[in-house]
């Protein structure tokens, strides 16, 4: 087996193009996937609970009526709403992964907006199970709330400006169906001017009227500035964010985990499948299994070759990425554990592929065709597809090593969860694929 391993290493050294491709290709794919994912799905499914009672849905701002339920339509242009009846239901949907997040508009929202004293608080729930998803939900909702705040602030400002205008210039004001005539500063000034001219010069009342007139002028000119002042008035709506599950991993570190997972997947699959298929393609397989090496020994040699190479490349890759992203080097032993388990599981899967195909070419093709969609599947955010489909996606993802690899590497790099579960999962997949490849080798002489 030692000689076989040395032979394989020599073959690799004589295929510099293949080795370069093997290292470059996954890195390019990893970067592309990273870009694609950070943009998020088009219209995420978000649970929406509007608890404001029907009767209170009209907001009266200084005679301007604002229908809060109409305001929701604007939000629905950016998300795909799943209407729920209660806060509890919204929370449950997030926990189950049926939706990406939930927005709850509490009962007292209109009351608070009406009073203008307390800001109204909207609750947002999201699942932090993976940072791409939660980041996307947070960004979407944040921008929506900012839009709503802008709209409300504008309206409030308009109402306030109307009042101020009334004070400055005077006019008719409608309150509870009754008309009032408001004098206004401008008219007051004019009236005062007329009154002043009728007073005899040197009358002490004239000086007093001058004082009042100066105040009115000052007040009127300064009220013109109120526009800007009002625009900067604080936010009428506040958002309280609640994270339900999982620890938050910064997106950049998570991208590193994805990049490393994709690389280790490609390198190990292609090497294991290719090296085994090559034995068949060159006919040497038949010589070897005539008592020179056992079939199991042959599989172990290929698994070791692929896993060790992939481990080395991914550690170098991590060290390189470490120059740009903060990595926790004190967790190095966990990195090695996660990467090694992932590499072995992928190697076993690669061997199954290599055992099924007889040529290197078809083995490589099958590896790429299988692994790309599986990696994408594992990255499908909950709530971006229907719940039934999402469950199916979960099951399929659990049968292949990509998802547990991502979990293990994320755990090792970012301390986002326990690494034990993913490691056991990978060990189970290693055994399952190992047995499958051994059976496949038996079937084909």
């Amino acid at each position, binding site marked *: 087996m030692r000689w076989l391993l040395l032979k394989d290493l020599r073959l690799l050294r004589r295929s510099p193009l293949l080795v370069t491709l093997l290292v470059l290709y996954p890195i390019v794919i990893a970067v592309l996937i990273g870009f694609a994912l950070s943009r998020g799905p088009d219209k995420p499914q978000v649970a929406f609970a509007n608890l404001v009672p029907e009767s209170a849905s009209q907001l009266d701002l200084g005679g301007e009526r604002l229908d809060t339920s109409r305001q929701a339509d604007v939000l629905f242009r950016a998300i795909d709403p799943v209407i729920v009846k209660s806060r509890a239901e919204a929370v449950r949907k997030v926990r189950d992964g049926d939706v990406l997040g939930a927005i709850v508009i509490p009962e007292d929202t209109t009351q608070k907006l009406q009073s203008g004293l307390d800001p109204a608080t909207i609750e947002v729930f999201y699942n932090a199970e993976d940072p791409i998803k939660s980041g996307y939900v947070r960004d979407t909702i944040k921008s929506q709330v900012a839009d709503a705040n802008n709209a409300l602030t504008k309206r409030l400002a308009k109402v306030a400006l109307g009042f101020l205008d009334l004070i400055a210039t005077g006019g008719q004001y409608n309150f509870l169906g009754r008309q009032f005539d408001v004098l206004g500063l401008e008219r007051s000034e004019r009236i005062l001017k007329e009154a002043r001219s009728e007073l005899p010069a040197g009358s002490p009342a004239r000086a007093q009227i001058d004082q009042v007139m100066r105040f009115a002028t000052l007040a009127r000119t300064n009220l013109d500035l109120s526009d800007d002042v009002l625009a900067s008035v604080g936010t009428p709506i506040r958002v309280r964010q609640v994270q339900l599950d999982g620890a938050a991993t910064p997106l950049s570190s998570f991208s590193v985990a994805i990049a490393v997972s994709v690389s280790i997947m490609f390198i190990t699959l292609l090497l294991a499948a290719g090296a085994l298929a090559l034995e068949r393609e*060159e*006919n040497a*397989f038949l010589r070897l299994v005539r008592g020179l090496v056992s079939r199991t020994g042959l599989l172990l040699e290929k698994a070791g070759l692929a896993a060790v190479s992939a481990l080395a490349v991914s550690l170098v890759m991590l060290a390189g990425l470490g120059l740009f992203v903060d990595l926790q080097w004190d967790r190095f032993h966990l990195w090695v554990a996660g990467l090694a388990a992932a590499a072995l599981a992928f190697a076993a899967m690669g061997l199954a592929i290599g055992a099924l195909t007889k040529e290197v070419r078809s083995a490589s093709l099958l590896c790429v065709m299988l692994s790309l969609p599986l990696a994408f599947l594992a990255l499908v955010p909950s709530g971006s597809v229907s719940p039934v489909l999402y469950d199916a996606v979960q099951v399929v993802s659990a049968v292949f090593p990509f998802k547990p690899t991502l979990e293990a590497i994320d755990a090792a790099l970012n301390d986002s969860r326990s690494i034990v579960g993913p490691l056991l999962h990978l060990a189970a997949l290693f055994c399952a694929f190992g047995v499958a490849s051994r059976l496949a080798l038996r079937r084909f*002489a």
Partner: protein
Amino acid sequence: MAADPTAATRPESAPAPARVLEAEGLVKRYGEREALRGVSLSAGRGELVTVIGPNGAGKTTLLTILAGIVAPDAGRVSPGPREVGWVPQQPALYGKLTVAENLRLFARLERCSEPEATVERMLALTGLGDRAGDQVVKLSGGNRQRVNIAIGLLGQQSVLLLDEPSASLDPRQRERLWEFVLGLAEAGTAVVLSTHNIQEAERHADRVLVLADGELLFTGSPRRLKEAVGQEGDEGLEEAFVAFLHARGH
């Protein structure tokens, strides 16, 4: 005319050599097709047996079963694969390794006591000493076949199976191959060899096996095969072989 195969298993007069290879009732099916239908044979120490038959007759199937690569659907073979040297019809070599590296790798896997000396010996035998450092993909088909044969000889087992070893060799190389194979047989190795070159079989074989459609139609010395078709004089075995097959509807 109906030659009972078992009636002619032994070359005349010579004492029965100790049997080192034995196979009984070998059956191999590939789906509907029966590649072998109950073939039995044996070979003794130092005996040279050639297997002849048309394309698709089952020669390769028989040899791969004897080599322990394919399991038969029925029947048994002894000894096990470790005690049998095997030269496959399709070269089984690593194209990206050099001639010497291929020989060295298999010498080590065969656990030869002195791998380097064995490599030197095989390079001399194949006359490829000057190509030792060339990658096998860069060799001609015949030279590749020479390396392929050499690897089958590395283990120096007491039984040697060769599947059409001379097919792509030039006459001089073919002569060298036969010299070597006859030398092995003289030293006691039992050799079973398939070929389409009937002249070779006639010249060198102690015994020929005629296989057609998976059936063993004849086993005996070349002379007995000629007699079986009533041939006399100095006509070649090739004519006798064709006539024999024709008489059996092949």
